């Protein structure tokens, strides 16, 4: 991983060592703080909201989501690490929307100052660019969603609000599915996924409605197994050297 040159080695190393120490210590502290604060809100509602919620309901709901996205929780940090670097990791996974917003910001900054990818300059440029992106993002969220959005909700006719509430889910998922299929570029897996999901939703669920709780987990597991056993072996072997 070390890419330092011979002459100014000591200055570079102490300078970057200080940077690494500060960002990893404070990156961890701020991320743990963010984690705890983001959990505090829902925990408050669950325990003090005067609602009738059992621990079992929380665990079952969490287990169902873990079965759906558990793999992604681990794979995403692994995939982004080479681009973001250790300091950028602590920023990116708290600010969110990494691929659509933070990665382009980092890349443009590196290009604009002519930093070679993988160099120390590029690493610093990425961190600074993410700070810039975060500043813009926090501001636009506060103004457009916090202030304007809250006002918008209070003035739009109830009929529009009702339609939004009822149909925003299919409107999000239709687009998200197409986006996932196009960006993954795995036609074979896509066919398996659609096939398994169609069987689960249109055949299994009407016959055994009690499986509704685990339907997504079944579809995820089924797709993984089919995609794995019927994988296109030559293509993977060809792709291996690039990974």
């Amino acid at each position, binding site marked *: 991983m070390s890419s330092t040159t011979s002459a100014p080695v000591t200055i570079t190393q102490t300078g970057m060592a200080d940077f690494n120490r500060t960002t990893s210590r404070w990156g961890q502290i701020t991320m743990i703080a963010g984690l705890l604060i983001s959990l505090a809100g829902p925990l408050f509602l669950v325990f003090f909201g005067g609602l009738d919620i059992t621990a079992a309901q929380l665990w079952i709901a969490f287990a169902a989501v873990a079965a759906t996205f558990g793999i992604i929780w681990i794979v995403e940090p692994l995939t982004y690490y080479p681009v973001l670097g250790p300091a950028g990791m602590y920023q990116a996974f708290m600010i969110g929307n990494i691929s659509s917003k933070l990665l382009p910001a980092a890349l443009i*900054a590196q290009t604009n100052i002519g930093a070679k990818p993988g160099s120390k300059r590029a690493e610093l440029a990425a961190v600074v660019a993410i700070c810039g992106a975060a500043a813009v993002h926090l501001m636009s969220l506060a103004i457009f969603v916090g202030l304007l959005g809250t006002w918008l909700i209070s003035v739009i006719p109830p009929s529009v609000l009702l339609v939004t509430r009822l149909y925003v889910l299919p409107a*999000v998922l239709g687009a*998200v599915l197409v986006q996932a299929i196009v960006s993954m570029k795995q036609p074979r897996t896509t066919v398996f996924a659609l096939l398994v999901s169609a069987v689960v939703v249109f055949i299994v669920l009407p016959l055994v409605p009690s499986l509704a709780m685990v*339907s997504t987990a079944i579809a995820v597991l089924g797709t993984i197994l089919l995609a794995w056993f019927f994988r296109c072996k030559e293509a993977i072997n060809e792709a291996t050297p690039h990974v």
Partner: protein
Amino acid sequence: MHQPLALQSLVPTDSTDIMVIANNPVLWICVAGVFGVIILQSVIFMKAARRAAPSVEMSPQDIKTSFRSGAVSAIGPSLAVCLVAIALLGLFGAPAVLVRIGLIGSAAYEVSAASVSAGTLGAKLGEASYTQSVFAVAFFVMSIGGAMWMLATLILTPLLRKGDAKIRSVNPAAMAIVPAAALIGAFSCLGLTELPKSGVHVLAFIVSAAVMGLCLLLAQRLRRSWLREWGLGSSIVIGLAAAYLAVGS
């Protein structure tokens, strides 16, 4: 209120006025807290970067240019995220949308997590069975899901820093196939689950999917990346408009 009897045993019978608890002052304080933590982190990282800059031959001008490039390039994507967030305000309320969709997570994961958790309670988001308790459980699960991402980052980053080669060479074929299969499998099952609900659901789903397909196609053909960034936002808005027209007619 008008729930069929079968649901009443599964769904805690309480109010469906989500906004009352979704706008609880404590939740707003937590939003301010997350904003504050990110600002604090940015300030500390900026200072550290400025201190380290001379050692890698990076001028103060380079720092300024990097910050400005990052800020400017984030304007478009950031506004696109705001549009998606506004569309989801009616479902989750501002505090949850700001933290979950605006920051830590992303619309795709959070909406999916909420939908799956509501499903385990026998409820459907946005419908009569979407009670305050269902919202609280969904919000809790979205948040703990986001916490898992952060936990994975906290655990993996130091390991990757020490010896990333070993972890990333787990199995290239598995790394290529398994995550993609999990994602497409999850989103296709969640998407198809919307279809049997009603004809308007089918319409909203198909219109939104078509608009996204068109955006991605045009983005590639015309080499305009903003079309990709605004794809999700415009698909949701046009899908909802189609649903509104269909309901009204």
